[in-house]
């Protein structure tokens, strides 16, 4: 059965990091898209980082949610990053073009090094 998505938020210098835990499916829509009013930005912060380490299952509805978040990021003018995405989902995200909007790093350390370096 579905493992519902839960989110823990961490703030860093000019961004927000969301630790995702659970499945990225249709049931995650409310949780992720209404976590904040994404289209109105992040109170001046310019980077949103998604930690996928706790996400084992992503389906087509989950992809649609990520695309909607990417559109909101474009509209509000913040950048979207992800890490902890397994090889299969990385390939799938590249395949559908999601990586044009979501920059992928292997882990939190390398991403933060890049963002804060």
């Amino acid at each position, binding site marked *: *059965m579905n493992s519902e998505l839960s989110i823990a938020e961490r703030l860093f210098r000019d961004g927000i990091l969301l630790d995702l835990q659970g499945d990225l*499916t249709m049931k995650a829509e409310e949780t992720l898209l209404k976590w904040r009013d994404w289209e109105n930005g992040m109170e001046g912060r310019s980077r949103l980082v998604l930690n996928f380490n706790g996400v084992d299952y992503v389906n*087509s509805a989950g992809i649609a949610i990520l*695309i909607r978040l990417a559109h909101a990021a474009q509209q509000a003018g913040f950048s979207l990053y992800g890490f902890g995405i*397994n090889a299969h989902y990385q390939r*799938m995200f590249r395949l559908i*073009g999601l990586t*044009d909007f979501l920059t992928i790093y292997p882990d939190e350390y390398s991403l933060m090094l890049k963002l804060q370096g």
Partner: protein
Amino acid sequence: MTAEKGMKMKDQAMIRKVWQLESELGQEKTVVRELKQAIRASHLPELRVDEIATAVSEACLNAIEHGNRCAKDVPVNVTMLVHADRILFRICDRGSGTDAACVQPSADMAQAKDKIGQRDPRGWGLLLMRHYADEVRAGCEGGEFCVELLFRREPKGGERIE
């Protein structure tokens, strides 16, 4: 043993597994978990196992959501046949098969770049099924609408992605 009989023996499914799912979102994960266990034993690369699991999962989701309209007591029947050279899945629902046109060759990954520009894009499941499976067939049979996904051990050609 005659050559013909030998071929038949060779063509028999090594593994046959059947699932009957309630039409409730999330039920497809049971199939995903169990098919992975079953086909890992046949020494496919892990990434290919994941691709197969994604395609089958999306076919199940379509059957649950669009075929049976999430009516929990209407079953989705899934059959897996693992042969020496291929793996075949048959996913059947009680719908009218109105999505059949979507599995025709016109629906391919070339649409993805247009699709991702839409604000609320749907239908990624069909594109993923078509991309990951070597053959996709669909049709009505005995009051059911069935989608068949065929995965060859030797892919139809070269690197699949990008």
